[in-house]
């Protein structure tokens, strides 16, 4: 059956202009309100600026000094790179990377530390994130405890954990792995629990209605929804941990850090640039690899 749509006639409505004094009063009030809000914004801006200046002054941050001495910084970067002439390039490169076997071994150790720390941290964060998420936590007090625990894990700097563990467990990469893993639990746990808080709750309700336990609900209603996000945060963390593991050697916790520290402190400038370049290239490689991995995971999910 066809439906005929009747055109609707709209009666024009005449709007009476306001009495001039009323209009003037309203306009005045409007102007006043706008001006007040502008004044407030301006006051906040001025206060903010004053606080920034005060903070800078107290912390002895001097932008003018920075501007004056920026040349010193670029000069340092210039000093870092050794002379490389096109004619003698292979020899120059060999001299630059004289310590390549040693550095590669140390870099390998650094990567393994980062890998293990990310894995352990990821497992810890996975176990805690569902308890810490507002929409799934079995009880308020458990959630409170989980959240505070994650905060402790991520607010204490890795280097501090490493220093404590060096005293407790002695020197070596294990200390670095533990320190990085604990920080990863805290950081990933927060991100994971936020992912969990954003899920669609309908599958959860569906499973609960069948009488599934809490663990079963998590496994079949929540995990499939969050896994790809977890993987992408985990891979990002791996990248961050590679950088973090590079510093661990500073406190005797293994990896390439100590070699880098010695080179910086002793002004072995060519070595500093050589090692830094190796670390940067490694992080670039990891970034490219993890991006492909993440897309592969997402693609598989979309195909399902």
């Amino acid at each position, binding site marked *: 059956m066809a439906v005929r749509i009747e055109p609707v006639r709209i009666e024009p409505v005449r709007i009476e202009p306001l009495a001039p004094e009323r209009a003037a009063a309203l306009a005045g009030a409007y102007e006043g309100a706008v001006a007040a809000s502008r004044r407030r914004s301006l006051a906040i801006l001025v206060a903010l600026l004053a606080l920034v200046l005060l903070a800078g002054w107290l912390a002895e941050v001097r932008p003018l000094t920075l501007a004056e*001495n920026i040349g*010193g910084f670029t000069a340092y970067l210039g000093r870092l790179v050794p002379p490389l002439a096109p004619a003698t390039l292979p020899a120059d490169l060999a001299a630059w990377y*004289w*310590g390549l076997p040693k550095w590669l071994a140390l870099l390998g150790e650094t990567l393994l530390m980062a890998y293990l720390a990310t894995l352990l941290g990821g497992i810890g964060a996975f176990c805690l994130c569902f308890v810490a998420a507002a929409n799934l936590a079995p009880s308020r007090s458990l959630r409170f405890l989980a959240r505070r625990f994650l905060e402790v894990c991520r607010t204490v700097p890795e280097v501090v954990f490493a220093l404590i563990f*060096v*005293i407790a467990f*002695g*020197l*070596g990469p294990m200390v670095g792995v533990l320190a990085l893993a604990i920080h990863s639990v805290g950081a990933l746990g927060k991100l994971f629990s936020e992912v969990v808080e954003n899920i669609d709750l309908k599958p959860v309700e569906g499973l609960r209605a069948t009488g599934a336990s809490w663990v079963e609900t998590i496994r079949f209603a929540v995990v499939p929804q969050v896994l790809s996000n977890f993987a992408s945060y985990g891979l990002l963390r791996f990248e961050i941990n590679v950088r973090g593991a590079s510093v661990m050697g*500073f*406190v*005797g916790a293994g990896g390439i850090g*100590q070699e880098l*520290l*010695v080179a*910086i*402190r*002793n*002004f*072995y400038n060519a070595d500093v640039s050589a090692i830094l370049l190796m670390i940067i290239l490694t992080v670039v490689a990891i970034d490219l690899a993890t991006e492909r991995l993440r897309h592969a995971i997402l693609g598989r999910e979309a195909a399902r």
Partner: protein
Amino acid sequence: MLDRRTLLGAAALALAAFPAAAQDWKARYPELTLGVIPAENASGTVDRYTPLTAYLSREIGVPVKLRVAADYAAVIEGQRAGNIQLAFYGPASFARAAMTGVRIEPIVNQKHDNGASGYYSVLYVKADSPYRTLEDLKGRNLALVDPNSTSGNQAPRFFLQKAGHDVDRLFGKTFYAGSHENAVLALVQGTADAAANLWNSETDTMVTRMAAKGMLKNADGSPMRQSDFRVIFRSEFLPEGPFAMLANLPDDLKGRIREALVAMPRKDKAAFDRLSDGKDLDLTPVTLKDYQPIIEMLRFNDEQRKRS
């Protein structure tokens, strides 16, 4: 036109300008910075050097500000950038600064209570440990101080090499504790089996200084003494590190700094005694030549590093 009046005027102007030129550096350096290597932990270093900066401010006529650097290299970089005009170095960090092109002049160094303007580097182990010789330490952990520390890194490497041991091969792990005190603490805590450190005389070592501050305790809380540590290796004599200033400071200012430092043990004995807990006798003038052996030592170590 050149007549008597203009000549007189010019002469008067020149006379008036002369003291102005002498005070000219005060406009360029309204404040000086004394950079100090962190041989001890930062608060201890501040206590030690604050009377010295007060004395220097009085003598030089401009405020002298104290900066305790986070590590030895920071003092070197500060001098290179010109932000630190006056610095207290260890011999190796001074040599490293001179080797890497910082134009500096050494002024004075400290004379210890045994009459020597220098000291030794030692390897400590705990007295109750089984280690008696260097061979016993094979595969054990060594706490060093800072890459630029003389007694805590460069001298042990150099003199152990001469004794037929490569530090990196002899020890299982070596690490930099950051300061002389931290290296001793690492040994006490058991993080390290041996620690490299400075040794001025029988009665003035890092251990006696830390014991005086109550920093060294046995597990049962009783204070540790020098006899709780055993020296299993001692280096040859090392010249004490200098106070040094930038070579490009105005001559007038340099003269004042030099005078003030040379006269300090007599002019302000309290401040001078504070530097060494009253253990030092005097400040003696030094020249770049006194540090030539240290520069050679660093060159040797740098070469050795690439060979091993």
